[in-house]
């Protein structure tokens, strides 16, 4: 599954970050890498973006970008 399909409360492990370019680089730079754990905290009031907990801090990213991250539910 992808991070975009995860629901608030889920904890997942990253399998792969697809794609290339500035957005993907930024996502990886912020700590979303193969094998790291992500908890989905919530969805913004208007439906997008997502708020996730990664490496001990809170990060917001858009659903469209989250679908590029292949994950496995824990």
């Amino acid at each position, binding site marked *: 599954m992808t991070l975009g399909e995860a629901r608030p409360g889920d904890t997942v492990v990253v399998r*792969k*970050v697809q794609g*290339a*370019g*500035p*957005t*993907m*680089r*930024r*996502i*990886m*730079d*912020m*700590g979303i*890498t*193969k*094998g*790291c754990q992500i*908890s989905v*905290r*919530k*969805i*913004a*009031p*208007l*439906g*997008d*973006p997502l*708020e996730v*907990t990664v*490496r*001990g*801090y*809170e*990060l*917001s*990213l*858009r659903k469209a*970008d989250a679908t590029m991250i292949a994950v496995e539910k824990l």
Partner: protein
Amino acid sequence: MAHTIALAGNPNSGKTSLFNELTGSTQYVGNWPGVTVEKKEGYIRSDKRYMVVDLPGIYSLSPYTLEEVVTRDYLIDGKPDLIINVVDATNLERNLYLTTQLIETGIPVLIALNMIDIIHKNGDHIDTKKLSGMLDCPIVETSAVSRAGLKELVKTATHLIEVAEGGGKPAKFSAPVEKPVSSIMHLIEGAVPPETLRWYAIKLYERDEKVMQRLTISAEIRHQIASIVEESETELDDSAESIITNERYEYLTDVTTQCHQRKRKSGTLSTSDRIDRIVTNRFLALPIFFLIMWGVYFVSIQSIGDLFIGWIEWLFTDIIGAGIGSLLAAVGTSEWLMGLVVDGIIAGVGSVLTFVPQMMILFFFLSLMEDVGYMARVAFIMDRIFRKFGLSGKSFIPMLIGTGCSVPAIMASRTIENQRDRRMTVMLTPFIPCGAKLPVFALLVGAFFPNSAWIASSMYLLGILAVIVSGIVLKKTRAFAGEPAPFVMELPAYHMPRLKGVAIHMWERGKQFIKKAGTIIAVASAGIWILQSTSWSLQMVETQESILASLGRLIAPLFAPLGFGSWEVAVATITGLLAKETIVATFGIVLGLGNVAEGDPTLLASIGSYFNSVSAYAFMIFTLFAAPCAAAIGATRREMQSARWTWAAILFQSGVAYIAALAVYQIGSLLFL
């Protein structure tokens, strides 16, 4: 000889506070040449031999954003003597990710482990000595808030520079990655300074565009490097960029598990998380937001701010104006010069400065919200709307500030990372009605639509609509088209506001506003006063016979299709370029009523002969959209860092104003008259 220390670190790491503490009032704020990225420099207060350059807050040294490129280029080319890397102890892994890259540049690094007090408060523990050993990098624990560790930081920094030492050891990658990186290092040996060898090699492995451009190496070697990278990517089944990022974080996870003990089990909520449960709650977020903004505006614009307006008006007109007036009269100054100084410059500058207290209070609250961490939540909540036209939630904040005044709003766009988005935000923000436009609306509503309260509110709606539609349209033009900038944003933990930082921030914004008022508006006020009281034969006359009036008559026909083709209105529009507040004052003057405000009954009555209800609405629309006041144009120039873009903004805004007013008048006349 002055030494240079570069200050680098993540956004929200407390870097700015540290910079303020180190340099105090010696700091100078400018821009990195040719780009819209802010540059701050200053001298260490306690030892002026050391200059500190505050680099933009960055998460990495990738080639993709302006801030990162500006930083990389400065570190590689500018060669500071030392880098003080501000690391947020509460966010160790992600902060150290940048550290590994800074160390690779070959410049000595000193880590300021900041926010150490929060670590202690949470009951966590970081083995600083062990961490320092593993990274081979000196570390000083600091807490910019309590100023702890500051003295030691300066002492350590200056000592390191003197003995030309400093850490650290570059991150070691796993064997399958070390091998190709080492091979590349061999290939480019001699082409780059030895201490930067590893940095360049890693960047080449990542296929970093910018590095590939700037290196002079033979095509043969480039080819060899390319095949090394390709082989590696196939072997590890991943892109080179991804491989390196993974390696760094693997290394760091290893380091931090050995040095950092968390008390709180992951999964339990921190205080910030608990606050966010309410603040970004699906149902409560927007109402809470509107409530907060209503409160902020009520206090700054209405209750407290309002108190000050009368006081400042009194100060300028009755005290300064009258005082200087009698002084000049006493020394027998000519009537013309007296008029220029008192009615022109002092009155002009005064009318704009009356807004300073309101602005300051507004800036205070906005800086407070930013410092506490709430602004990030606002961008998070609003992002969905802005994504539709290629911007992000970060563009909302300038527009929010724009409901008070465009000048600080335009300056606030500095927080938007992407230059293209920043420019678009600067161009569109003035469409939101600012406080100065309200008197114009009040006047016309009072004269033509006394029973329709919704007309005034429609201005806000139209402003928002204009932003949205323009955004969508502009996005399709070549200048703004392209990949949307990534919206991957940290939501920093809430913390108690650092009032000193907030005050500095508020003062900085207010100072800009005052400086602009002082210079541009003083000159423009003088200019307009001269034009409106002098005839072509250079004699003092009534406004009707002045140069300004003839200029007004000249351009009045342009406004005829919009329904307000009289010279009086044309003149008011010209003075509106100076400051929107002066539009009402100008009406008063050209109608021979002297200094009046928008509620004045004679003014309301006389204005009726220059408009009808449709053209009045058209004029309101024109005022809403047209190029903003001189101060805002000045702020635009500063943020755009380009005269060409500033003109583009002015022409775009005026173009929209003209077309919108034209449409309203022509269609409105057919429908309603």
